[in-house]
């Protein structure tokens, strides 16, 4: 969806599509990198505190899924750092000194995350329970700080700061102002909450499906309840945060805000459009609430809101309908998830047990997909809404794109590769879960996950199905003297 959006946005079409599809893919894995550790640690904490074997088993299996997702995320993250240069040399060549800084810090946090994922994943056996729990804590912290670093780079594109330009060349850089630009606190909070919501509702959704299929044991109930609670706490915070950010954007990037809310002219008493398609300046199929947008922006119907007529048409974002509908979709799903959480909380406060009727579980199972859709929609809003600028009011996308030919080819390859990566990140956990369900714990010992110490170093050498333990004398090879 992001890819299509960017493809339609005109100009550097293939480069935008490639960046769009890469980021749109990576952002989902990044969410798991940021938040999955917290969900897993919560389960382990309950398990240790209450001596609950089911909770510990959940945490253990989640840690294996986490390893797969972090590994795929490392690959797609490497792709992105290449693409920053391959696709946007005009941005990196001119502003790399500024926008590159946050990425350097991200590298450190990713390193830390990878190290502690390894310790956490392979420390289940021999580390004392609480020490093992603490070994997962750095993943949670590094996840949030890593998100802060990457989002700071994106925020800088929305609110460029901390540099001095003379004759088109950066002559001075203030790293602190680059990192903590005006948009950083808002975007970071929004993204970290989004990561928690996506991870929590996707995991809860998986177990909601299991519950719907009649697997109603404690293992599945906990597997649903733990992430759902985390998501349920994050959802109302996110709705509040979204409201604050919308007001910030109305001030900081009024043209983007105008596109989000269908505000053609700067006026008072601006109506709030819900849904609707913009054709030739008319909104069709939409419902409008009179003066409500003014109220949302400034708490009074008489507040003036800036429209897109404030800038020449060449500086307005394209695809206004897409931006508006994406925004509405994101907000709508936000409220949908909030309602689900409130429903469960209401039931729980009276009955002190989980509400597990199909009426609740079907939408809860869809909550994961919905959360991902909301995040992608929000990302379309912020990226397409910034167009035609790559650095807001400083550098146009068209002046940043690579002059090299061949981008359509790499775009096609990237799409194929990402299809494969998607298959890996969904398929591998599915294969694992099928094995788990067959209930043969012995198999878990031979199960290999990317990275972490090799079993052989740890003193056990599992014979994978590919490498039958053939007699060494027979396989000595030509080198055997």
């Amino acid at each position, binding site marked *: 969806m992001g890819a299509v959006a960017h493809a339609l946005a005109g100009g550097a079409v293939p480069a935008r599509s490639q960046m769009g599809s890469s980021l749109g893919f990576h952002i989902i894995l990044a969410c798991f990198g940021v938040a999955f550790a917290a969900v897993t640690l919560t389960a382990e904490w309950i398990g240790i505190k209450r001596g609950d074997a089911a909770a510990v088993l959940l945490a253990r299996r989640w840690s294996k899924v986490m390893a797969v997702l972090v590994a795929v995320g490392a690959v797609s993250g490497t792709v992105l750092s290449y693409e920053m240069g391959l696709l946007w*040399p005009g941005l990196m060549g001119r502003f790399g000194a500024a926008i590159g800084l946050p990425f350097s810090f991200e590298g450190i946090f*990713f390193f830390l995350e990878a190290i502690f994922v390894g310790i956490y994943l392979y420390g289940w056996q021999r580390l004392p329970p609480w020490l093992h729990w603490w070994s997962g804590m750095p993943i949670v912290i590094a996840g949030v700080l890593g998100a802060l670093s990457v989002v700071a780079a994106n925020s800088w594109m929305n609110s460029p700061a901390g540099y001095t330009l003379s004759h088109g060349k950066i002559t001075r850089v203030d790293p602190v102002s680059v990192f903590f630009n005006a948009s950083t606190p808002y975007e970071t909070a929004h993204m970290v909450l989004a990561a928690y919501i996506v991870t929590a509702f996707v995991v809860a959704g998986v177990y909601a499906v299991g519950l719907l299929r009649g697997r109603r044991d404690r293992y599945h109930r906990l597997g649903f309840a733990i992430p759902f609670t985390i998501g349920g706490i994050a959802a109302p915070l996110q709705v509040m945060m979204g409201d604050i950010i919308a007001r910030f954007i109305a001030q900081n990037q009024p043209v983007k805000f105008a596109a989000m809310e269908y505000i053609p002219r700067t006026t008072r008493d601006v109506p709030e459009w819900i849904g609707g398609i913009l054709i030739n300046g008319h909104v069709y199929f939409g419902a409008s609430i009179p003066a409500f947008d003014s109220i949302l922006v400034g708490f009074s119907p008489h507040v003036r809101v800036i429209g897109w007529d404030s800038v020449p048409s060449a500086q307005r974002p394209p695809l206004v309908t897409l931006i508006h509908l994406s925004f509405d979709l994101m907000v709508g799903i936000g409220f949908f998830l909030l309602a689900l959480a409130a429903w469960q909380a209401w039931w729980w406060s009276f009955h002190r047990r989980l509400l597990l009727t199909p009426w609740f579980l079907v939408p809860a199972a869809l909550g994961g997909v919905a959360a991902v859709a909301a995040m992608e929609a929000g990302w379309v809003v912020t990226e397409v809404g910034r167009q035609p600028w790559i650095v807001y009011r400083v550098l146009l996308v068209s002046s940043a794109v690579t002059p090299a030919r061949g981008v359509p080819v790499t775009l096609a390859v990237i799409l194929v590769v990402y299809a494969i990566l998607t298959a890996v990140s969904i398929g591998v956990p599915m294969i694992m879960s099928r094995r788990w369900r067959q209930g043969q714990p012995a198999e878990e010992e031979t199960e290999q996950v990317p990275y972490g110490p090799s079993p052989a170093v740890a003193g056990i050498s599992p014979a994978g199905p590919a490498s039958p333990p053939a007699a060494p004398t027979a396989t000595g090879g030509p080198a055997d003297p």
Partner: protein
Amino acid sequence: MSASPEAIGVATILVVVIAAYALFGGADFGGGIWDLLAGNAERGAAPRELIDESITPVWEANHVWLVFILVLLWTAFPPAFAAIMTALFVPLSLSLLGIVLRGVGFAFRHTAERLRMQQLTGALFAASSLIAPFFMGTVVGAVVTGQVPVHAAGNVLAAWTSPTAILTGFLFVAACAYISAVLLVTEARQRRQKELVSYFSLRAIAAGVLTGALAGGTFAELSVSSPHVFAGLTGRALPLVAISIAAGIAVLGMLWLRWNQALGLRVMAAIAVATVVWGWGLAQYPYLFPTSLSLAAGSAPTGSFVAEFVVAGLALLLVAPGFVLLYVLQQRRVLTAAETDADLRQATQLGQALRGQPALAPVSAATRSTTALVLALLAIRAIREVFSRLRRR
């Protein structure tokens, strides 16, 4: 205008990180190459298993070295980064493809169930281990020969298809195979697998001789294609080059004489690779692109360099202890993949307990049909609503 001390400092860090990537990433790629050359499923089983076991713990971290190289380059020397990325779009894209396919093959091959699928993902993994270092080599060759235009306006085919660049590509592949074979000798030795020690010793010697020959060839080519770097290598950087050659010969000697003292072999091989990278950096100084773009002209403002020093400091402060911790835990066998007996029993009991519990009744047919009916009614209403709205407009 000469380069600022900060610029020289960050350039030094960059060269050190490149050397680290050459070592660790090289061993990683080399493992894939030996996997590719290990023969059919039966014959290659033992070496493949060793390769697999020694790569698994490190492949993740190796990507991060590469990302650090890219990030350092674009933050500290943005014009050089932009020019390289534009002019060498094709080989860079191909090396990226190699890296990605490697990751895919690696992640899948452990979970693939059927032998055929495992062979396919294994082949993917091995072939991409060949592609990635080769095209990285051509990129370095293009930079060394100064054929990357500072204001690149598109792909420059000639830059990375010059004899020097192609030779450098082959040199990279051979060097990866060499460093990996040496490390695999020590790994096999630690596991007391004598057959594999001699298997990889022979291959390490062969790869070492080939690497030496290719290095000699590239060196000879450089005298014509990049006089500045050639002069640097034979002048200022000569001690480093000499150390590299000496260490390389020492490794070959140790392997030949079966003096397989693990630490000594590793250190010698590491010195051989690292010093030649440092020598290259020193020889190319003070140029980013000899001789068209100097360090001073391609530098970012001081603020960016300071931030990079902070990053390097943080890396030493946070990442290095983390690595040490991981290594110590691994050596003390605290980190294990398998379950202990008690664990297995507990899990089995849990499984039985879970299965023994009467599961709540699955969703009844009545509920299901009611749900379907209500959803259908809602859908019909929604469609009617849409159409009546359309008509009103």
